């Protein structure tokens, strides 16, 4: 039984849905700026206008789809001549004071204003009066920059801080075409741990992330699905890096291999369309100086030599202990369990603890456990705190976060780490391992939800995946 009709076709609607929601769910195209599925209805951009056919030969009337409740049997037109004319008209209004500086705008290429304009207007500006001048570079916070000339006052960012992040950090000042989005003076927006999401939800290029400002045109980049390792929530993210065909020799080599930006990958079960600011700064976590050389007591060695030495140490040890990384993927943890689980006593260690000043935990996303895969690690290796049994003569430390002063006296050390650290040279065997962006795998978050991450950057020479390393060790154990 159809509930109502769009362009003559019967469409089923859920209870409480608006025309826009039902139309989008049924695959009809209706443009919109201010409407967002996770925010309240503001109805101020007026671009989602549709025509409703009058009943019993009455006149047709137009109304915005985002705020229109569905009534049984109503007939809606989303692409009539009148609708197209009205949308064109509205887009001309929006463009009236918009600077159209797409050439220097970070949003170009993924801008809703560009898309809708191509679909409905496609004509040069009709205005012959000067555009309103406004602030071109206004720092809303230490992370977010606002270009008021590009702003179309859709109020998505304001609603985000009121309804999602609850910081109430943004508002609109002044009236009419002098309206300006501004942060409150007490710095609430600066403290908002989710502030960078406003950059994603901005339908135009008004809100810009400082850490991506003028860094790359988005069409040179590609997104690889990944998982944020910043806390036990395990938000799915897109890691944006240069497309293969756009890795140019003329560029600074760093530009070819860096993570240009991180955006949320919508995932209703875990994080919705949001991530926190820490997730935006994953590059800062991954792009620390890397350890690229296997070492035997500080002496450079090959990966084979290191594996052989580690194998010997494990074979000779009477009471070996492994400290398991809570940053290991499900696959790596399973490999460790399968190959060495019977031979060594294992404890799970927290690789990262909350940094000073970091938000510990909140109601939206952030969790107090700052490691992505504690759930699987504890499931496989138990949740007992690290306690070395008497007579421990070998310790395998996997990942960061171990206080080496706790190393039992006289015990040998096998150390697996990705980054340069003073302890690397002191270990009996040091093996540089790959980081998350250089391999594929999955993490299980605190709710038991597994999310997969893909490989997006090449693995440097001299680095081995932990999973492969464990497999090599196991070969030795089986031979012995």
């Amino acid at each position, binding site marked *: 039984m159809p509930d109502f009709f769009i362009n003559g076709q019967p469409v089923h609607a859920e209870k409480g849905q608006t025309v826009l929601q039902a139309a989008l769910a049924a695959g009809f195209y209706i443009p919109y700026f201010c409407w967002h599925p996770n925010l309240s*209805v*503001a*109805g*101020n*951009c*007026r*671009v989602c*206008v549709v025509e409703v056919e009058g009943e019993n030969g009455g006149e047709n009337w*137009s109304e*915005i789809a985002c*705020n229109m*409740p569905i009534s049984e049997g109503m007939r809606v037109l989303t692409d009539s001549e009148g609708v197209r004319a*009205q949308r064109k*008209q*509205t887009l001309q*209004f*929006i463009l*009236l*004071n918009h600077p159209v500086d797409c050439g220097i705008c970070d949003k170009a290429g993924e801008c809703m204003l560009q898309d809708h304009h191509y679909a409905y207007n496609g004509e040069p500006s*009709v*205005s*012959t*009066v*000067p555009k*309103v001048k406004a602030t071109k570079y206004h720092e809303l916070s230490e992370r977010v920059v606002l270009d008021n000339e590009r702003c*179309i*006052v859709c*109020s998505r960012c304001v609603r985000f801080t009121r309804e999602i992040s609850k910081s109430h950090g943004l*508002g*609109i000042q*002044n*009236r*009419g*075409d*002098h*309206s300006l989005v501004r942060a409150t003076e007490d710095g609430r927006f600066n403290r908002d741990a989710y502030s960078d999401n406003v950059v994603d939800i901005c339908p135009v290029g008004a809100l810009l992330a400082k850490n991506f400002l003028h860094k790359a045109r988005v069409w040179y980049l590609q997104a690889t699905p990944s998982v944020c390792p910043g806390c036990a929530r395990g938000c799915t993210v897109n890691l944006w890096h240069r497309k293969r065909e756009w890795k140019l020799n003329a560029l600074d080599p760093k530009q070819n291999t860096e993570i240009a930006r991180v955006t949320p990958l919508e995932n209703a079960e875990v994080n919705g369309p949001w991530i926190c600011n820490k997730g935006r700064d994953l590059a800062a976590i991954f792009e620390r100086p890397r350890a690229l050389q296997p070492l035997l007591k500080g002496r450079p060695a090959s990966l084979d030599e290191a594996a052989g030495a580690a194998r010997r140490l494990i074979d000779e040890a009477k009471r070996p202990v492994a400290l398991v990384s809570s940053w290991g993927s499900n696959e790596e943890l399973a490999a460790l369990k399968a190959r060495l689980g019977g031979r060594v006593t294992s404890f799970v260690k927290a690789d990262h603890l909350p940094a000073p000043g970091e938000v510990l935990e909140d109601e939206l996303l952030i969790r107090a456990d700052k490691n992505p895969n504690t759930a699987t690690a504890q499931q496989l290796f138990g949740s007992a705190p690290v306690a070395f049994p008497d007579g421990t003569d070998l310790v395998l430390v996997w990942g960061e976060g171990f206080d080496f002063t706790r190393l039992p006296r006289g015990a040998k050390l096998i150390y697996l780490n990705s980054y340069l650290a003073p302890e690397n040279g002191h270990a009996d065997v040091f093996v540089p391992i790959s980081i998350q962006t250089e391999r594929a795998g999955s993490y299980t978050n605190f709710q038991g939800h597994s999310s997969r991450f893909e490989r997006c950057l090449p693995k440097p020479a001299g680095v081995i995946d932990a999973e492969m390393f464990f497999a090599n060790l196991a070969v030795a154990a089986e031979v012995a």
Partner: protein
Amino acid sequence: MPGRQLIMDFPVTATSHLLPDYLARGGYETLKKALSTLTPEDVTKEVTASGVLGHGGAAFPVGRKWAVVKLNDGQPHYLCANADEGEPGTFKDRWILEHSPHLLLESMLLACYALQVRNCFVYIRGEFDLPYRRLQAAVEEAYAGGWFGENILGTAFACDIVVYRGAGSYVCGEASALITSIEGKKGYPRNRPPRLTVRGLYQRPTVINNVETLSNVAVIMRMGAEEFRKVGVAKSPGTQLVSISGHVNKPGVYEVEYGYPLDKFIYEDCGGILGGQKLKCIIPGGISTKVMTASDIVGVTYDHKAMEKAGSQVGSGGMVVIAEGTCMVRLLQVMLRFYHHESCGQCTPCREGMGWMHRVIDRIVAGDGRPEDIDTLIRISNANDGTTICGMGDAAGYATVGIIAKYRDEFEHFIANKRSKCGGRLEVEEAAHA
């Protein structure tokens, strides 16, 4: 006097706005009678039967607005008196607030009784100083006299009132922006649906009526609906307070009975045109209504149906008289400057359109007009028609289209000759032959 007087039915003296004088005029007797003998439904029925229309500009039947509020639905209801009288040329509610505040309070009590309202509000514009002081003094008198608070006149009926001062925004006179402002937010109008009588102030059913509309409630309850209907004409019962200003000899507030001849009102009751000039046109009910030329008003009676037939509206009753020799281009410039300044900036067509129109008319007045500018103004007006959240975009459009339709030649002359066809003045001089 232009017809019978229902609200301005007493001589204004130094004390006529105070409680003793109001009681001497039979004040609060109607309330006493209603609380002791009538049910809330009876009051609503009486008001509906009177056929009284809203006096704020839209002329929506009061009974139909009230009927949406369901009694005994287990949630609080609110009543707001809209005293944010911001329409240019309109200052009629100011008269009630200054000279008969108790009439408003008694009417609000009756309305609160009919709609089961425990807390009611008066949203008064911030620029009103004397009206605010007089209203606030009246509220204190009424509290002291036991007409507000718990157990009013010994019955179970209880009601409290808050006078809320606006901060100077035209848009806050729009009902939904008004309640958003009372809630402490930026005065942005809200999208309908839901209607305010379903979900209004603090998300509860809310009735918002103009001060004059509400003041009529006590009048209706005193006279009875049947008697009230005998005043005015069938489709527009009662009277309208008209604030007349501009090039007229006796400007001020007049109570005009609906159906009174419009030309007689202007030429006789208001003393004719200033400086012995001829009438050019009038803006009949606030600048958002379409202008009527001198020939348009001949033979028109002042009621909703006749005014609509003549191509305009009763509107808010803010009448502006414009004498021959006034430059309509300059007049439109003043109006568009106002609309640009007052656009709240929430929705696209009005936010961008008002500024655009203002800049175009500024350019014409500066002598840089282009022939296509007239059509641009009309096009922007039409693009605002019915596409905005509140009625302000439409209002500016009506005003613009109305003036250009009647005086297109003046615009063409200004653009072609870079100067006004009538001296470019908004003031009038003494007529040469006077």
